[in-house]
């Protein structure tokens, strides 16, 4: 062991990964069902559930905004972390480059999401 030990900054990414994983496991399947099956096929839910007006109102509501932000940003951080580690597993140790592409991508998409959600107004 090399001393002194350097503290790993992994907990930041691991926490985002964990939060995204938890959220995607709990809400991912039902979101796929609602947006991909129930609404388009007219099952269970009213036909206008995902109409433009409804969705805009949802995105303008503060709780709706928070929900959309958490779903998009945390899912992305989860995916970025998973892809980064899978690259390592299959032998691509690009280090800083892979890190920038994976986590940088998630960071940029997070900022764009935040900007768009604010731009759509309250």
């Amino acid at each position, binding site marked *: *062991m090399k001393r002194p030990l*350097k503290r790993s900054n992994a907990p930041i990414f691991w*926490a985002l990964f964990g939060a995204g994983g938890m959220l995607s496991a709990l809400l991912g399947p039902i979101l796929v069902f609602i947006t991909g099956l129930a609404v388009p096929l007219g099952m269970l839910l009213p036909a206008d559930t995902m109409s433009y007006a409804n969705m805009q109102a949802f995105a303008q509501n503060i709780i709706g905004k928070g929900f959309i932000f958490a779903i998009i940003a945390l899912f992305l951080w989860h995916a970025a972390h998973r892809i980064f580690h899978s690259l390592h597993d299959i032998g691509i140790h690009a280090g800083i480059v892979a890190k920038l592409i994976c986590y940088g991508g998630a960071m940029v998409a997070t900022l764009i999401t935040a900007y768009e959600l604010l731009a759509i107004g309250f």
Partner: protein
Amino acid sequence: MSENQRIIEIEVLRYHPEKDKAPYQQVFQVPFTDDMSVLQGVQYIKDYLDGSLSFRWSCRMAICGSCGMMINGEPSLSCETFLRDYYPARVRVEALAHFPIERDLVINMEGFIEKLESIQPYIIPKEPRTLAQGEYLQTPAQLGAYEQFSSCINCMLCYAACPQFGLNSEFVGPAAMALLHRYNVDSRDGGKAERMELVNSEEGVFNCTAVGYCSEVCPKHVDPANAVNQNKTNSAADYFMRFLTPKGGAK
């Protein structure tokens, strides 16, 4: 030779670093009976076919942890793996994966010993204790918190199983981390803060990608993957909490 004695082919990885450019395979025809382990198979080779074959062994009963080998590519204790389960196919025996080979099936375990030392695998008392104070008392629940993690026999099968240790040998790894956890959760111990430094470091728990093969191959049913992943939570808490606590969690 008794009637029920059969012949099995054992393919052994040979390597003598002073003489050989690279490791190579050698096949031996070994007579065996139903009760013979793979270890007894390689012992037969050493006694009757090729005395130069080198391997470690001691207790023959899955207690000492010396005879770990890759058997058909799986990290196993050769003393509790039986030739009859492979017959009539050939069985392939190699040195434990992810370690440098010293000779034939003997690996260099220096790196592992260093890791064991680095986790301070002993009780560091919370405060000095005199003989007059008597023995430490523990409840069954306090014992239960660490008991399974104390069954490690240092056989290193989990290191041969761990793909992340294979990619980065600096990683503290499953067995050492399980033992670290064993002391950290012992009610008699006060050394957690010192050990957390290692857990939190770049050589620490976050090298693990939760594959879980370490726990699968453990011959003593220790669950190192559990210890490592509990400590990811501990480490993440330590990482963020140090900004909130006045003294800070760790350096």
